[in-house]
């Protein structure tokens, strides 16, 4: 059996000097070649690995027939953001991990084919999608947060015939797709196109609407909305709680990435928001956000970027592709290292980070081997910028302002995993605000389930 068709990409030497997307994507010939590897299994186990249940063999069959637009139409029956998912989904843990070919060799590159089909449509579709007809008598549903969960719920609800208003706190749509994921992994023009598609379905997106401050969930019901979906994500950055964390030169990954991605600080002074990058940057953490921050720091001109992570390579939660790209680009991986203090100069700027070395002990409750400090292993890493990327929690603002909305100890909204219903009738929630920080596609899956159940709820209620 042949291997996956490789995806051409910018060379590491070239790409660390720009913010352009790293992979070029398949051309038609490559897509046809890759699609031909799909066996078109009757049981199509791959679909089981897709949180939004895209009929994968069917869309690949269309590609085989060179019906590329038809392929996108199959995908869009289930997934309103295919160009995004084709780029940022961890397919290796999802659809592709179920592919029969994967048992003996490489699975079909489902993600790359999805990306190809979505890109082809964007580049070739002659007429834009027509807007859904708006009538004054539709039932109104409010969606809070224009990230992956909210966009998906809004699109599905619009397709089900509801009048959907999407309330977004920032000045631009996308949530983490906008402020978190960098341009070189997800070009913002592609995000804009896919959001444009969702708007063309009739979804009305309103910006600068911080539910919990500008208006409340009670206000929404008073305004005639019959149901609400909350997809506010995991936006509150965690810090290490070590000395020196408030020194100048220490960023949360959220601040660093928001400056660069949402505010486009990489084009300062053309754009007004600055970002200051040092000579040697340490990024603390091992997830996808840490990889994004590290690779962004390189592109902003840092001489050296080190990932400081307390476990080993295998335990790093970042996607294999991200780790691989980071390594190719020359990121220095300080694995089994943990910061204990950030050191400042007399003016209060970072001048170093004290770390300890770790070794792996017995497995902990997560099943990963617990990192243990090696006594006497302290040393100072010579850095002048530190990006803390150890995770995000739920923003408490909306919960605090909504009486009766139940949460768990961590502040995540409690929602029925089968229906996404919360403790308040008519209020549903999904994505990171429920699960804690997870993936784009998991949030989209939750948005989809919620939309279906909101529809059921409204029909039962006769609303």
């Amino acid at each position: 059996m042949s291997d996956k068709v490789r995806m051409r990409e910018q060379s590491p030497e070239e790409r660390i000097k720009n913010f352009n997307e790293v992979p070029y994507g398949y051309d038609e010939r490559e897509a046809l070649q890759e699609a031909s590897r799909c066996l078109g299994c009757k049981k199509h186990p791959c679909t089981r690995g897709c949180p939004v249940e895209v009929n994968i063999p069917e869309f690949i069959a269309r590609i085989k027939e060179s019906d590329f637009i038809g392929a996108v139409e199959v995908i869009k029956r289930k997934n309103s953001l295919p160009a995004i998912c084709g780029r940022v989904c961890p397919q290796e843990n999802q659809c592709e991990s179920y592919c029969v070919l994967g048992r003996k060799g490489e699975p079909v590159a489902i993600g790359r084919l999805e990306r190809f089909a979505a890109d082809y449509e964007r580049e070739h579709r002659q007429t834009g999608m027509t807007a859904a007809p708006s009538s004054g008598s539709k039932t109104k549903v409010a969606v809070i947060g224009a990230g992956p969960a909210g966009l998906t719920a809004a699109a599905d609800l619009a397709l089900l015939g509801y009048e959907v208003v999407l309330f977004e706190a920032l000045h631009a749509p996308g949530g983490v797709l906008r402020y978190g994921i960098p341009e070189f992994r997800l070009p913002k023009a592609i995000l804009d196109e896919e959001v444009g598609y969702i708007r063309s379905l009739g979804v009305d997106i309103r910006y600068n609407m911080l539910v919990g401050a500008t208006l409340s969930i009670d206000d929404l019901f008073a305004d005639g909305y019959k149901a609400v979906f909350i997809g506010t994500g995991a936006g509150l950055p965690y810090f290490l709680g070590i000395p020196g964390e408030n020194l100048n030169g220490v960023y949360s990954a959220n601040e660093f990435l928001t400056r660069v991605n949402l505010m486009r600080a990489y084009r300062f002074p053309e754009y007004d928001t600055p970002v200051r990058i040092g000579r040697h940057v340490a990024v603390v953490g091992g997830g996808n956000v840490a990889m994004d921050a590290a690779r962004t720091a390189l592109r902003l001109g840092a001489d050296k970027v080190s990932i400081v992570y307390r476990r080993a390579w295998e335990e790093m939660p970042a996607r294999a592709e991200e780790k691989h790209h980071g390594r190719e680009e020359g990121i220095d991986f300080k694995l089994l290292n943990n910061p204990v203090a950030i050191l400042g100069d007399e003016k209060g700027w970072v001048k170093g980070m004290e770390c300890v070395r770790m070794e792996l002990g017995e497995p902990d409750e997560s099943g990963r081997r617990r990192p243990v400090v090696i006594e006497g292993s302290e040393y100072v890493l010579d850095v002048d910028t530190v990006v803390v990327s150890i995770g995000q929690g739920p923003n408490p603002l909306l919960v605090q302002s909504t009486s009766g909305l139940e949460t768990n100890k961590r502040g995540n909204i409690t929602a029925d995993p089968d229906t996404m219903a919360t403790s308040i009738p008519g209020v549903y929630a999904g994505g990171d605000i429920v699960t804690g920080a997870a993936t784009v596609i998991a949030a989209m899956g939750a948005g989809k389930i919620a939309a279906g159940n909101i529809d059921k709820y409204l029909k039962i209620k006769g609303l």
Partner: protein
Amino acid sequence: MYKIEYAADLAESIKLLVVLAPMVAAKAQAGHFVVVRNGEKGERIPLTIAGYDRQKGTITLVVQSVGKSSSEICALQEGDALTDVLGPLGHATHIERVGTVLCVAGGVGVAPVYPIAKAFKEAGNRLISVIGARSKDLIFFQTEMKAVSDVVHYTTDDGSYGLHGFVTDAVKNIVEGGEKVDKVIAIGPLPMMKAVADLTRNYGISTVVSLNALMVDGTGMCGGCRVTVGGETKFSCVDGPDFDGHKVDFAELLRRQTRFSEEEKMAYGRYRKEEHKCRIR
């Protein structure tokens, strides 16, 4: 877009803007702030709300030009618009009847002090105000502050109006002159708030300061506005902006406010050069 219904110069490089933002106005209370953005390439800037009119759906903002973005906002006129206005953000000031409240405003800080002073007055407190500025022509909101205060004191650094000295000199005179002050609200430049808090600590008078730290989103997402209060890290956007002035680590905050000063200076320099070229044409 958020239309500017009225714009006026209050003093040299200080502008008052009345902005149409009905949803913000509907929820605004004394002490709240907004994050505004001017232009598609603009940065997000926190500004304390200096007033609101729920009927007209407007909020009042006072902006001092100190860099590129603030200068551009100060150049806006009636009929222009701000690209984004998000709010109201932060916790409203805790208003209660305590007896005598001393409101201390430094420079442009009189703008956010005004609605707070008004609310404390309406809650039945005796209200004493101290308004300090570098010089007489930089003092504004005199009529407004007089209307809500039992007594107003003025100080100027150059002695051109009121007491020749700093706001702390006036506060000292008031307290040591026998006035029983139950609460102090101090808003203005960080060194001024620090000086007031240092002084009132000696008197044991509860002192609230409003912090306008550098921030990006204003909703608790970036953590850029973190400040140490009583040994704990707080986000001034969602935990504040009001804090116990006796517990704020002002030295750290002063330092953190300089995180991007080189970049800000560069951007302002470029802006001034461009603006100069425009004027020559």
